[in-house]
C-alpha cells in the first residue's frame, strides 16, 4: 500500500526493493491459491523457538495476552483463568502442554492467547505470538505422524513452510501440526 510519492526522486533503493519484493510475493500467491486443490488452513503460532500449527477451525478467537488468575493446585503448565466476554476461560501454556520448556514469568503483554472453539469447557492456549494463517496440503499433514520425542504424541505431523511466510517472518518456514484433542486430552474431563 505504500506508494512512493510521484515525482519524488529521493526514493530510497531499499524501499524500492521492498516494494518490488512485495509485488512479486503477491503475484506468486495468486497463482498458488488458484492451483491448490485440497488445502487445510492452519493458524501458525510461535512458542519459544518452535512454530506450531493449529487447525484454524479449532480456534475461536485471538486476544492479546493479559494477566491470568492462578489456580491453586494446578500443574505448572496450567497458567490460570481469565475472564473473556463474560466467560471464564482456562489458559494453558502451549509449550508446557507439549512438555517443552516454558518461558519464564508466565504470559507477558507481548504474547497472544488463542481461545479454542467448542469443547466441553472453555480453554485457551497461551503462545508467544500468533504468526499467520497458512493453507497446507492435508495429505502432507497426515503423513507426518508419531515422530517421537517428549510430548510428541500430540504432534500429528509436520508441514513444510511456504516461501512467502518464511520471508515475512524471517524464521523456519515449516511448522509442527498439533493434534489438539490429543493434546488436551489430559486436561479435559473424561466423558
Amino acid at each position, binding site marked *: 500500500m505504500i506508494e512512493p510519492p510521484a515525482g519524488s526522486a529521493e526514493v530510497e533503493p531499499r524501499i524500492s526493493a521492498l516494494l518490488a519484493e*512485495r509485488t512479486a510475493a503477491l503475484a506468486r500467491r495468486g497463482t498458488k491459491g488458484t492451483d491448490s486443490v485440497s488445502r487445510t488452513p492452519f493458524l501458525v503460532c510461535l512458542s519459544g523457538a518452535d512454530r506450531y500449527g493449529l487447525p484454524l477451525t479449532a480456534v475461536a478467537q485471538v486476544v492479546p495476552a493479559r494477566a491470568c488468575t492462578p489456580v491453586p493446585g494446578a500443574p505448572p503448565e496450567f497458567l490460570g483463568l481469565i475472564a473473556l466476554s463474560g466467560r471464564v476461560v482456562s489458559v494453558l501454556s502451549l509449550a508446557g502442554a507439549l512438555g517443552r520448556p516454558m518461558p519464564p514469568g508466565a504470559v507477558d503483554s507481548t504474547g497472544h492467547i488463542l481461545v479454542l472453539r467448542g469443547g466441553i469447557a472453555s480453554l485457551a492456549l497461551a503462545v508467544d505470538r500468533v504468526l*499467520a494463517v497458512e493453507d497446507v496440503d492435508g495429505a502432507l499433514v497426515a503423513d507426518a505422524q508419531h515422530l517421537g520425542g517428549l510430548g510428541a504424541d500430540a504432534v500429528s505431523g509436520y508441514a513444510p513452510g511456504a516461501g512467502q511466510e518464511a520471508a515475512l517472518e524471517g524464521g523456519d518456514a515449516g511448522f509442527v501440526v498439533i493434534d489438539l484433542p490429543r493434546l488436551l486430552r489430559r486436561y479435559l474431563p473424561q466423558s
Partner: protein
Amino acid sequence: MSISIGKRILLGFVTVTLVMVGLGVYALGQIGAVRDNTTMIVTRDLTIARKLDDLGNKSRDLGNLRRNGVVAALMRNRPDAEIAAIIDIWRRVASESEAILVDIIRTADGYSATAPSPERAAIWKRLGESATSGAADFRKLRTASDVQLAAISAKDVDGVEARNDDLNRLQDEFLRDLDRTRDVLDQGIDAGQRRSTDIYERSLLSIVLIVGLCVLLSMIVTSLIRRGVVKPLEEVMAFAEQVGSGDLTRTLPRTGGDEIGRLAATLNAMVSGLADLARTNRAATADLNAAAAEIRASAQEQAASVEEQFAAVQETAATVDEITHSGAQIGKRASEVIATAQSTAQISRAGLRAVADTAKAMDSIREQAEAVAGNIVSLSEKTQAIGEIITTVNDISERTHLLALNAAIEAAAAGESGRSFAVVASEMKLLADQAKAATAQVRTILSEIQRGINTSVMLTEEAVKRTGTGKARSDTTQRTIEEITAKVEESVQTFQQIVASTNQQQLGIEQVMGALQNIRQASQQTAAGTREVEAASANLTELAQALLTLADRYRH
C-alpha cells in the same frame, strides 16, 4: 767577705768623713778655748787697769783739792763756804777712792780663785796684796789729810803748813803703791799672753796629729778598696781578654754574692751564650754557604726559566692577538644576534596577538559547540517523540494483526461464504505485518539516530572540552610566548651587555698587550738581574767561606 763593693767604699768614706768631722769639732773647740781664755784675760786685765786708772785720777784729784784748800787757807780772804765745799768734795772723792780700792782687792781675790792657770792666780794674789798695802797707805793719807783739812777749816795756817810735808810723803808712798800694783798687772798680762800661746801650741800639735791619723786611715781604706775591688776586676779583665782572643772554653770560678760575683756569673752566662752563638754562627755560616750555593743554582735555574718565560710571553702575545680578533668577531656576531633577537621579539609579539585571536576563536567555537549540543539535545527529544509515535503505530499494527487473524478465523468459520473475506483478512494481516516490519525498521533507524545523537552529544562535549583544552593551551602558549618575548628581550639586553663587555674586553686586551710588553721588558731585566744575582751568589759563597774561617777562630 760578702759585703758589696759599694758598701765597702761607702764604709771607707764614712770612716774618713767621721774622723775629719771629729777633727773639725776638736779644732773648733780648741779655737773657742783660746778665744775664751783671751777674752777672759783681756776683760779681767782691762777691768783692773781701768780701776787702777780711776784710782790714780782720784788720788790726783785729792791732791789738787787738798792743795786748793791749802791755798784758800793761806789766802785768808776766802769765804768759809768755799773751803767747806772743797772739803766736802775732797771727802766724797776720798770715799769713792777707798771704795775703788776695796773693789780692786775683792776683784783680785775673786780672780785669784777662778784663774785658769796657777801663774795667773799667783799674780792676782800678789796684786791683791799690793792693793791691800796701797789701801793701808791711803787710809794713813786720808787720816793725815783729815787733820790738815780740819786745820784749814779752822784756818790754822801753821797747822796746815806743818802737816804739808808729811802729807806729800804719804801721797808719794800711795802713788808708789799704785805703780807697784800696775807692774803686777803688767806681769799678769804677760802671763795671760803666755797662757794663750801655750793653748795655741797644744792645739796645733793635736790637730797635726789627727790630720796625720786621717791620712793614714784614708790610705788603709784605699788599700782595702783596692784589694777588694781592683784585684778581682783584674781577674775578670784577664778573663775578658781571653774571651776576646777567642777562648770560650773557660769559666770564672768565683760565685760570691757581691758585684764581682754577679759580674762573674753574668760573664759566665755571656760566655756560654757566646759559645752557643758561635756554634749557631758556625752552623748558620755552614747553612749560609750551602744556601749561597743553592741560590747560585736557583739563579741559574731562574735564568733558564726567564728564557722560557720570555718565550711564553711571546706565545701569549700571539694568543692575545688571536683573542682580539675573535673578540671582534664575537662583537659582530653578537650585534647580528641582537638584530635577530629583536626581530624575534617582534615576531613573538605578533604571535602573541595571533594566540590571543586564537583564544577568542576557541571561545566562539566553544559557544557554537554548546549551541550545537543544545540543538542536538532538542533533536534527541524530538526523536524520542518520534519513538513514541512509532510505538503507537506498532501498537496499532499489532492490533490490526490480531484483528486480521480474528477476521481470518471468522472467515474460516463462515466457510465458503467467508472465503473472500478471508482474502481481505489475509490482505489486512499482510498490511499489518508490513506496517510492523516498517515500524521495526523505523525503530532500528531511530535507535541508530539516537546512537548518532548520543555520539554527537559526546563528540560535542568532547569538542567543548577540547576547545577548553585548546583555550588553556593557547593561554599557556600566550604565557610561553610572553616569557619567550621577555627572554628574548633579556637576551637582547644580555647580548648588548656582551657587546659592551666585548668592547671592554678589547680595551682590556689592549692593556694586556701593553702589560705583556712590560712583562717582556721586565723579563729581560729579570735576565740581567738573574745574572747579577748569580755573580752576587758567587760573592756570597766566598763571603760564607770567609765567615767559616772567622767562625773557626772561636774555640768552644
